């Protein structure tokens, strides 16, 4: 589906926001202002922005674990102030400070961040089943990386989604890396999307560094699912600039990733590519772009202030015990 100007501006804005949010998270981790760990997304933020910018509030989303879902959630329109508060152990956190980074926004149909990679695939079938049963055009955007497709759950999920023609988009953000290990070694064919062939599921491969190209495919896939035509597989070929999570070495296999590889990757930086495009097409001026950046920085400052000004959650053991079961 061809994008109009308004859509391109929305995508560009979200891409800038996503990039700056990711950098903020990276910085806070180094500052000791985040609990747990952080898996940076730099270099691979375009697919998530494209997948989520045009979702409705009642569409299900499984955000990617990279960026801890923040780039996906802001693109879906979720206020992530309470996410940062959660990630800093505060009582205003979306999960009352209990979860570290296992965020959940059920009202926005983001039900879980699991500690298990590939555990998005099983409940995805349930979300799809509910969507199909209710028949109100709801779709499921299931974002995860190439590594997650090693899980047998991916097979089980795609098998059932295709059997039952569930409205699910398997949005594979293939950055070629799972911690240190390359997809080249761990997947027998060049494309993860080759898996879809076996189920008779339509699939598309797209340049994951180009947010606009990704979004055109996303809109097609969302439309396909909404119309009841069943699941679709989208593979975005993308990159990971940083180490797996902050503090781990930057390896490929067991050897350091080369400077040449980094240089090559940096040439295809998604914000740079998108900026060149909007300027060349006359969609935005440099002044517009500066304003978008400033607005994003201001927004992030408010999110950080909210988290920093909140109190550390200090429930008693009895209060926690009372929360194990629902009424």
């Amino acid at each position: 589906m061809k994008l109009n100007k308004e859509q391109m501006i929305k995508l560009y804005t979200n891409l800038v926001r996503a990039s700056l949010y990711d950098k903020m998270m990276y910085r806070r981790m180094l500052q000791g202002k985040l609990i747990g760990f952080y898996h940076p997304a730099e270099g691979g933020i375009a697919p998530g922005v494209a997948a989520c910018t045009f979702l409705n509030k009642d569409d299900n989303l499984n955000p990617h674990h990279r960026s801890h879902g923040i780039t996906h959630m802001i693109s879906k329109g979720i206020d992530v102030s309470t996410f940062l508060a959660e990630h800093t152990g505060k009582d205003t956190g979306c999960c009352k400070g209990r979860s570290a980074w296992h965020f959940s926004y059920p009202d926005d149909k983001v039900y879980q961040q699991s500690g298990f990679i590939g555990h998005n695939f099983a409940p995805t079938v349930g979300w799809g089943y509910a969507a199909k049963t209710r028949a109100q055009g709801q779709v499921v955007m299931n974002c995860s990386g190439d590594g997650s497709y090693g899980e047998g759950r991916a097979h089980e999920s795609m098998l059932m989604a295709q059997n039952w023609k569930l409205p699910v988009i398997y949005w594979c953000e293939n950055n070629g890396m799972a911690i240190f290990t390359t997809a080249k070694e761990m997947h027998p064919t060049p494309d993860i999307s080759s898996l879809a062939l076996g189920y008779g599921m339509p699939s598309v491969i797209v340049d994951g560094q180009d947010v606009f190209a990704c979004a055109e495919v996303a809109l097609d896939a969302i439309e396909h699912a909404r119309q009841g035509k069943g699941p679709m597989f989208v593979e975005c070929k993308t990159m990971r600039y940083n180490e797996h999570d902050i503090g781990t070495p930057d390896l490929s296999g067991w050897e350091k990733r080369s400077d040449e590889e980094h240089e090559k990757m940096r040439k295809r930086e998604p914000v740079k590519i998108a900026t060149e495009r909007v300027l060349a097409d006359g969609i935005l001026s440099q002044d517009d772009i500066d304003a978008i950046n400033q607005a994003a920085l201001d927004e992030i400052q408010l999110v950080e202030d909210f988290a920093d000004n909140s109190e550390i959650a200090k429930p008693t053991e009895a209060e926690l015990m009372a929360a194990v079961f629902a009424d």
Partner: protein
Amino acid sequence: MRTITLIEAIKEAYQEELRRDPDVFMVGQDIRGAIFPHTKGLVDEFGPQRILDTPIAESGMYGVALGAAQEGLRPIVDFMFGGFSYVTFSECSVTTGQYHFLHGSQRSLPITMTAGVGTGQRLANDHAMSIHGTFAHHPGIKVAMPSTPYDAKGMFKAAIRDNNPVMIPWHMGIMMLKGEVPEFEEEGGDYIVPLGVADVKREGTDVTVMANSLQLQNAFKVADKLEKEGISVEIIDPRSFVPFDLDTVLKSLEKTNRLVVVDEDWESGSFANTVSAKVMEQGFDFLDAPVIRVTLPDMPVPGGYMEDYIAPNVDKIEAAVRKVLA
């Protein structure tokens, strides 16, 4: 009152709850064709969308329930055999148990899980293992197991109506056990048996035996035999393991001062150990003798005739009762 089997009682619970609440549905493997009779004929009344068969893919199958429950539906998951739940244990125990708590009490998961369990069928370990102790060990899931048709129907209905995840297996050894169950249309026919409430199944004064499901039937036999010798056995059916009704056990011990815990599960890490420890900590002054446990020895359950050599049975329970009285 009419008499039906335990497995029929479970089926009636499904039927009545499926009729009562359109959000209730069932997912499993070969439940339409009814590999066990508790689902026989359900598809005819409720259709294949609500009596949903999946491929042999336990994670995906459980995922239907997990995702649908997050969406507000109320799934019943049938694992067929209890051991099969372990294929998707990270979802059905870890993820499910932590869900409400970890995510800030925003959503609960009203999922009912069930499966046939237990020794007696000579099917060997993966088809004979008990699962209640393992599920009880991991927080956040209610765990119960019925011993009579009346309890089965009432407890399954309570589980389906509960807003929390509930694992409620049933023992294959008492599948055809008959008992009185009121008709739905009768006065009090739409009843539930609340989870977390133990039941004194037989009153006695000399020794308390805690037993459940097939082992409850064995305990009855022991009590009948010892009664002729003038030994009065009180029998408590815990019914639920989580939450556990310790008060009923302690109240009994005030009277009998002696406890045998029968648990068809491996000794190490068993629910019997939990009961023994709780009684030691909270009921020590009631005890005239150490608590004795009758469990499976710590070995994989062998198949064939060898199951008979190791499983808790009448002789083992009788020996334990005599020992605690000695």
